[in-house]
């Protein structure tokens, strides 16, 4: 016990409800205090007399709020005050509808609403100043790669991957791209504060850009539906953030230590709107946020500069935009800037690292087979990007979204593992990000005809049999199982989250309840839906497990064998880049098309 022993009267000013008080009574007694629990339905006069007779230090009242109950509680406080109790007895109120504002209005010394811990009530009893704890400060940023050593359990696969990764490193030697050159110039810009030099560097940068970006560096012109945020908008953002900061009382989603960290994805097109979404999600417990860039940005050589908004999905990557978002984050929030596809991959990782992102996303196989970028170009760019990720100590995930095109899991996983080993060889810390949803492969082959559990479980089991590496289920989990019904979508997300947790993965990305069918910007309320659903699911299962059928083991073995076969074919082919064009990691028949953006832009023999 940390303070003087107190005598506490617990009184349910209510016909029936006293469960909360019973819990507090136990907590108070464990903390060494005396607690007297009155039966329900005592009159205010009887409660006050009991407080006087027992010479108590504190009264805790519980009451369910309803019609005219506020007046009843106000009368109780008045009577307590007129009886002279309040000069020496503190009085707190608890109940499902109680908020600090209401407690103040009712005249109590403290209010305990839903989610109040017994510890908070004890702190009040012990006379420690009642300020709601800054739950955000208690949240800490988690490094999900920390406990992994990346040792291979499947030595055959390890050997094949080493061969392929070495070939890639050899392949990119002496090659560069406009994307790599722009990143190098951008690095020089960061180091210079000489205006003349910066002007010259911008000219050099523009020379490596597409026409729509060149126009910006020539005369400030931006593409249609795109504009700079005004100074009033930036001022409003600052004021919004100051207000939000004072109100932030973030929830924790995890119930046990092994529940995965939960990421949400944002990319409304407007950094201000993004920040509002991020703050909402932080408040409701999201541990991490993922920056989605626009699809045109991925297919355009070069980045704009400044605070830019546009009326399309995905938020424009500029140093300034990223800085706005970084500055808005709680210190505990993990932040990922995706660079896995497109023509600006190295510079994206450089900007993310410079601004202070925690994570990035790089995958050659997905970016070139499902993301629209030329395989050769992305291979050369990705090696440079991974080097930046290593330099900034930013782990990156390797997502297998080509599964959504129809590529079977074993082929997508082969691509993922190649980039993983490439990352390890270049000094980075990769994270496996298998798709955790209802993919075209299973729609065709029927592995999810009975349940959504077995095949998702098979994927995780397969990866764990191969390598000791962090796993972050993507992206978003439960994709294509969700409908326009927000309740159904939330439940489906929560069930997938529970399965991922049961399989002991490290992270998950979740969608909002209206993400698949929003037909426009998604709503903050729908974000809260899935965060709350996930929190409830974690609470429901705790350490209990979901048990897949024997199919999961069978399919896991098939996936491992399929990965091995795929890698053998790539090794046999001799060239990784050529294997991508040939469809060895996902063929046209399976829905994977080698991208065309940036084709023929690799500069050789430098």
């Amino acid at each position, binding site marked *: 016990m940390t303070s003087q022993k107190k005598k506490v009267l617990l009184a349910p000013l209510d016909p029936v409800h006293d469960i909360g008080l019973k819990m507090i009574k136990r907590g108070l007694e464990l903390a060494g205090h005396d607690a007297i629990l009155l039966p329900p339905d005592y009159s205010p*006069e*009887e409660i*006050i*007399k009991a407080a*006087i007779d027992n010479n108590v230090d504190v009264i805790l009242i519980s009451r369910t*709020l309803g*019609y005219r109950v*506020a*007046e009843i509680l*106000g*009368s109780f*406080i*008045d*009577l307590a*005050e*007129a*009886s*002279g109790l*309040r*000069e020496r007895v503190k009085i707190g109120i608890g109940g499902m509808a109680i*908020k*600090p*504002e*209401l*407690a*103040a*209005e*009712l*005249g*109590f*010394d*403290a*209010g305990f609403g839903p989610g109040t811990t017994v510890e908070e009530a004890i702190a009040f009893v012990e006379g420690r*100043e*009642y*300020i709601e704890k800054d739950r955000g400060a208690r949240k800490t940023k988690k490094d999900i790669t920390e406990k992994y050593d990346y040792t291979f359990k499947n030595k055959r696969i390890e050997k094949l991957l080493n061969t392929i990764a070495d070939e890639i490193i050899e392949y990119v030697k002496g090659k560069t791209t406009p994307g790599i050159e722009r990143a190098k110039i951008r690095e020089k810009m960061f180091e210079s504060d000489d205006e003349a030099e910066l002007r010259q560097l911008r000219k050099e940068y523009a020379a490596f850009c597409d026409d729509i970006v060149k126009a910006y560096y020539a005369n400030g012109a931006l593409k249609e539906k795109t504009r700079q945020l005004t100074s009033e908008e930036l001022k409003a953002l600052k004021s919004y953030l*100051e*207000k939000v900061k*004072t109100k932030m009382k973030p929830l924790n989603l995890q119930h046990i230590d092994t529940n995965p960290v939960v990421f949400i994805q944002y990319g409304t097109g407007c950094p201000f709107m993004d920040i509002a979404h991020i703050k909402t999600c932080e408040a409701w417990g999201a541990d991490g946020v993922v920056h989605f860039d626009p699809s045109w940005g991925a297919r355009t050589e070069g980045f704009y500069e400044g605070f830019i908004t546009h009326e399309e999905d995905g938020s424009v990557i500029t140093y300034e935009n990223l800085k706005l978002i970084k500055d808005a984050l709680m210190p505990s929030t993990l932040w990922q800037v995706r660079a896995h596809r497109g023509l600006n991959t190295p510079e994206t990782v450089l900007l993310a690292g410079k601004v202070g992102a925690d994570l990035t996303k790089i995958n050659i196989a997905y970016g070139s087979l499902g993301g629209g970028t030329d395989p050769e170009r992305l291979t050369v760019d990705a090696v440079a990007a991974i080097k930046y990720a290593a330099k900034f100590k930013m782990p990156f995930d390797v997502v297998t979204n080509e599964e959504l095109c129809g590529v079977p899991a074993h082929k997508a996983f082969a691509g993922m593992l190649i980039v993983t080993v490439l990352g390890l060889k270049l000094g980075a810390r990769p994270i496996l990000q298998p798709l955790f949803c209802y993919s075209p492969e299973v729609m065709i082959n029927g592995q999810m005809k009975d349940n959504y559990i077995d095949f998702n479980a098979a994927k995780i089991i397969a990866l764990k049999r191969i390598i000791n590496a962090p796993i972050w289920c993507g992206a978003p989990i439960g994709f294509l199982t969700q409908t326009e019904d927000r309740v159904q979508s939330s439940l489906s997300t929560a069930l997938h989250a529970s399965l991922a947790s049961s399989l002991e993965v490290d992270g998950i990305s979740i969608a909002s309840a209206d993400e698949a069918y929003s037909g426009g910007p998604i709503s903050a309320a729908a974000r809260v839906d899935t965060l709350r659903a996930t929190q409830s699911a974690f609470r429901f299962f705790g350490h209990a497990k979901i048990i897949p059928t024997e199919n999961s083991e069978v399919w896991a073995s098939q996936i491992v064998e399929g990965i091995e076969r795929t890698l053998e074919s790539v090794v046999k082919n001799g060239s990784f880049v050529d294997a991508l064009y040939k469809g060895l990691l996902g063929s046209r028949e399976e829905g994977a098309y080698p991208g065309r953006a940036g084709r023929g832009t690799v500069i050789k023999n430098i």
Partner: protein
Amino acid sequence: MRIIGVAGTAKNTGKTTTISGLLRCVSQSSKTKVGLTSIGYDGEEIDNITGLVKPRLFLNKGNVVATAITLINVGSAELKIIEETDVFTPLGRVIIAEVKKDGLVVVAGPNKSLELKIVVEAMLEELGCEIVLVDGALNRIAPMAITDGLIIATGAARNPDVAELVQETRHICDILDLAETEESYKKIVSDIKTIAVINKGGKIDTYRYSALIHDDIVSELRKIITDDARAVYIPAAVSQPALEKLLEILGARLSGFTILLHDPIKLLVSASPERIVRTINKVEVLKGRIEVLKKVPVLAVTINPFYPRYLFDKNIYEPAYVDEELLREEMQKALPLPVVNILKDGADILMKILGF
């Protein structure tokens, strides 16, 4: 008269509208430095309980507010903290701040008499406020015992039956108008903190309770009330049923006997005003007296025809109104006090009563 309380009979009876009207008049007509605090939580846009839109509190530059520290940036007014008090609310420590730029404020100040007194005195003495307005909360009135005068805000939100509402308001005013006791009694009980029986010849018997709120307390008290007893002093709350029980015990001895309370609010908080008045009348019929050490004068009554009507089928409240003219006429007929509808009449009449 420097500390003015605005107490409501229920939520939505017009406390905040009355305070807002006063603040507006003060800022327009004089350079008076006004202090503002609340024994509840006020100034928010939406009512905490009914979910309906509420009037808000606007303060001009130079005025002073005592509120919880967590609320200083919630309104649009720019506030500079002058003093951090040792008083706490569920929303944090109470601070006293000066308004640096006009705007809306959200107020949650001290919610008990002793702390209200400390904070209000600091506003008057240290910050130079000429008047401090204390905003009430719900139907709560107990902390208002420290004010110099009260404005009672009532209206259809308390009871949409005009006749019943008028009668109740009359009863409240009658209770608050209980006679102040003679100086000799004031002197005798000035240092007494518990219930005390004052006997013939000045002998005083004290009792361990300070509030008369339960039959058991009355039963024990009976033991020390002898034939020599002339008065009983109750410094804290008196509940109407306990008072009835006391009358029963005293019976015929009540003739010439004085029941002495600290202030009328100690009785007002205990039951419906109608029942309390019935008991007071009984005392008078039996030729006894109920008197108070300190009066809390009612300065005016403000009326509000609005009430939130609860729709059971939709589980929401909707705005509704009673006949304003009828309410005003009936109220004025029943009370020897100014009756004001702030939204119609403005707060000028109240300003005059307060001496501005």
